[in-house]
C-alpha cells in the first residue's frame, strides 16, 4: 500500500470513530487538532486500525507517536515486514 492509500483508509476509520463523515485527516492531524480525540477514542482508533490492516501494536510503539504521519510511518514499517 502507498502512503496515500493508507492515509485515505485511516481517514475513513477516523470518520467512523468520530462519527463525522466530513472529517479531513492530514499527516499533521493530532489530538490537538481533532476535537474529540480523547484517550478513549485513541484506543478505539488503534483497535480499528489494527483490525482493518491486520496489524498489532505494542504500547511502547504507540506512546511516542505525535501525529497521524507518525502512525502511518509505523504502519508502513509493520506492513513491510
Amino acid at each position: 500500500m502507498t502512503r496515500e492509500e493508507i492515509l485515505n483508509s485511516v481517514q475513513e476509520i477516523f470518520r467512523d470513530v468520530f462519527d463525522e463523515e466530513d472529517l479531513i485527516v492530514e499527516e499533521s492531524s493530532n489530538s490537538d487538532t481533532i476535537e474529540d480525540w480523547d484517550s478513549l477514542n485513541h484506543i478505539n482508533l488503534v483497535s480499528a486500525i489494527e483490525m482493518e490492516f491486520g496489524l498489532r501494536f505494542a504500547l511502547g510503539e504507540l506512546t511516542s507517536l505525535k501525529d497521524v504521519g507518525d502512525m502511518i510511518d509505523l504502519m508502513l514499517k509493520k506492513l513491510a515486514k
Partner: protein
Amino acid sequence: MNDYRFSDIHVGLEESFVTTVDDTMMQKFLDISGDNNPLHVHADYAKEKGFADKVVYGLLTSSFYSTLVGVYLPGKYCLLQGLNIQFSKPVFCGDTLKIIGKVSYINEAYKQIEIKARILNQKDQKVSRATIKVGVMDE
C-alpha cells in the same frame, strides 16, 4: 462474580447468564428514567399498536449487557468503554432472556477487549445484539 484478568482472556471466550423480566423491573426503570411512553406503561395502548403486551424498555434489556461484562466477562476487573446496540424484536414482561457474550478481539496495547453479545428470548429468538468495548483493569 467472575474475575478474569487480561492475561486470562482469549478470542472465543464465552460467558452467559439467564434472567426473567418482570413488572417490578419495569416499574423501577420507569422510576429511574422517567420514560412514561405509553408503549411501555399501558398494555391496552401497546396492543392497539399491534404488540402482544406493553413493550419492555430497550435500555432495560440492554442493562443486562452491563451485567454481562461487569459480572461475567470479564467480571470484577471490567471497565465498560463503549456499547453499540441493535434491537431486533420486542421483549415483554415474563420473557426469559439469555444474555451471551463472546470475546471477538483483543487490543494488547491498551488492554481493551471487544465482545460480540446477543440476547435471546425463551423461543431462542434474538431480541438484540451488541458490540461492547471493555477495558480490563489490572488487579
